[in-house]
């Protein structure tokens, strides 16, 4: 690569980094405004028009606040944890295509940092790394509530990662590729959300749990754990946790858009030299829509109890994901093997399986009282698998 190529690369990275930061700023404001609306408050109002600069003001405030390190803290780990919480969200965004491409200085510049041929795997690997920030923060604080938050969140994130991974497996089986650009090309006519709707739901639930957002924010349940894993953090280090959480929210929304909602595809309102603006606008619009849904979920649902969270993850989400992967496999492979006839066989098998499931499911839905767990918590209205 010559120096122009390097310069373009640096500029691209910078644009993605700062674009992500600015969008995070705006989405935090949006979240606060929407929740305020739903609770008939006004929300942030003073900083900037309609309070849009509130996140910037908060950031500056936190930057100048004193950072306190607890005496019992494990210093190197305590200092590294916020960084580890922040970077996976940024890294995962690298493989997201956020537009088509633009030709500048005689070079074609794609709107995507890296088109890895194992894009989905990269996203999974990065989300799996995001657990470290939370776990290490909780442990290194040398304090009880953060430790409890860390234990909760590590169990929760590992559990829901499996469900989320299964949803991604279904999508990649259906599209037949791990590369993000090919995934979007495969959604040329129909967005994946239509044939893969169950996987979309599983993915969104898993994503909410992975990003520790309400109603799955057990790691920082303020009614039980003060503030969970970041209780002992203050100042700029706390700001990094806050930022990391919202960066992963934006990234997860971007992944949902790319995998299920056709990525930057839309109806082109722009032509010619500015044709690249259309896809970019569609991408931003779709991300905003997904985040809006996440905010609505947060504002409507109460926090889950911990045992129910685990029950739901292991007894509902993962079995459901597995069954859906199986169904997707049948639908994909049978037409390949038997041509058109295979399609009808697949349909018949699935309808038959669904009928059988509805017949058999009631047998498992009620557990007799004698089977209740020794802990003594009421198990009558337990999840129905």
């Amino acid at each position, binding site marked *: 690569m010559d120096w122009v190529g390097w310069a373009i690369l640096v500029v691209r990275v910078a644009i993605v980094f700062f674009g992500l930061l600015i969008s995070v700023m705006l989405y935090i404001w949006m979240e606060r405004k929407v929740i305020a609306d739903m609770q008939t408050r006004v929300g942030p109002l003073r900083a900037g028009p309609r309070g849009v600069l509130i996140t910037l003001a908060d950031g500056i405030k936190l930057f100048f606040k004193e950072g306190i390190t607890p005496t019992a803290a*494990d210093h190197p*780990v305590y200092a590294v944890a916020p960084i580890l919480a922040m970077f996976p969200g940024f890294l995962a965004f690298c493989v997201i295509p956020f537009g088509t491409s633009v030709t500048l200085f005689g070079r074609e510049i794609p709107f995507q940092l890296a088109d*890895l*041929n*194992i894009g989905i*795997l*990269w996203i*999974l*690997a990065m989300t*799996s*790394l995001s*657990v*470290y920030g939370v*776990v*290490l923060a*909780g*442990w290194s604080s040398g304090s009880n509530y953060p*430790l409890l938050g*860390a*234990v909760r969140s*590590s*169990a929760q*994130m*590992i559990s829901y*990662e499996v469900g989320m991974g299964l949803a991604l497996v279904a999508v990649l089986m259906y599209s037949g590729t*791990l590369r993000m650009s090919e995934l979007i090309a495969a959604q040329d006519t129909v967005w994946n959300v239509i044939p893969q709707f169950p996987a979309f739901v599983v993915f969104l639930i898993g994503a909410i749990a992975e990003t520790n957002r309400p109603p799955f924010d057990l790691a920082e349940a303020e009614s039980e754990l003060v503030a969970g894993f970041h209780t002992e953090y203050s100042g700029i280090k706390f700001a990094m946790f806050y930022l990391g959480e919202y960066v992963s929210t934006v990234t997860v929304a971007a992944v949902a858009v790319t995998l299920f909602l056709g990525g930057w595809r839309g109806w082109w309102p722009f032509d010619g030299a500015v044709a690249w603006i259309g896809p970019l606008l569609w991408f931003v619009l779709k991300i905003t829509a997904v985040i809006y849904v996440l905010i609505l979920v947060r504002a409507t649902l109460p926090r889950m109890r911990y045992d129910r969270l685990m029950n739901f993850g292991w007894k509902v989400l993962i079995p459901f994901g597995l069954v859906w992967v199986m169904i997707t496999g049948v639908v994909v492979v049978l037409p390949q093997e038997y041509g058109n006839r295979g399609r009808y066989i697949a349909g018949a098998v699935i309808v038959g399986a669904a009928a059988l499931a509805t017949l058999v499911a009631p047998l498992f839905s009620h557990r007799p009282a*004698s089977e209740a767990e*020794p802990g003594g918590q009421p198990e009558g209205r337990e999840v129905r698998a």
Partner: protein
Amino acid sequence: MSAQEYAFTVLAVVGGLSAIAVVTARNVVHAALYLVVTLLSVGGVYLLLGAEFVAWVQILIYVGAIVILFLFGLMLTKAPIGRDTLDNQQRWLGALVGVGVFAGLVFLIQEAFPVQDAERFETFHATTDAVGESIFRNYVLPFEAVSFLLLAALIGAIVLARKDDAS
């Protein structure tokens, strides 16, 4: 040396040093973190070999799940984290076993892939396709055997951990 060899040297040194740090660390959680560095550099070596899929799976499984489970276990069981409670008198035995395993692996790998054949692998690219084909077509029996073993371990763990009441 080529850029690849420089990169390999750095990865090997970092990975090796942190592997030593894993066993000499005075704190179990720190040891787990050094293990993360070691596993990451192994992933980096896979990347250098052009095995992208294996590299990211290595990071996803080992760094993202297994070490997290170690940490989870350490925190949940209130295992002693400091040095004194952790120490025991079998250091020499441990070193002996370590050297034995190392020698055995070196011998086996030399037998299977002699150094003079290194050029043979240069054009090989372990794409997802190739990995899938070889696991589910050529090596499906070992694959099933390994999954069976893991399943048995899983059920064993549940049986050991579960306390059934007499009723």
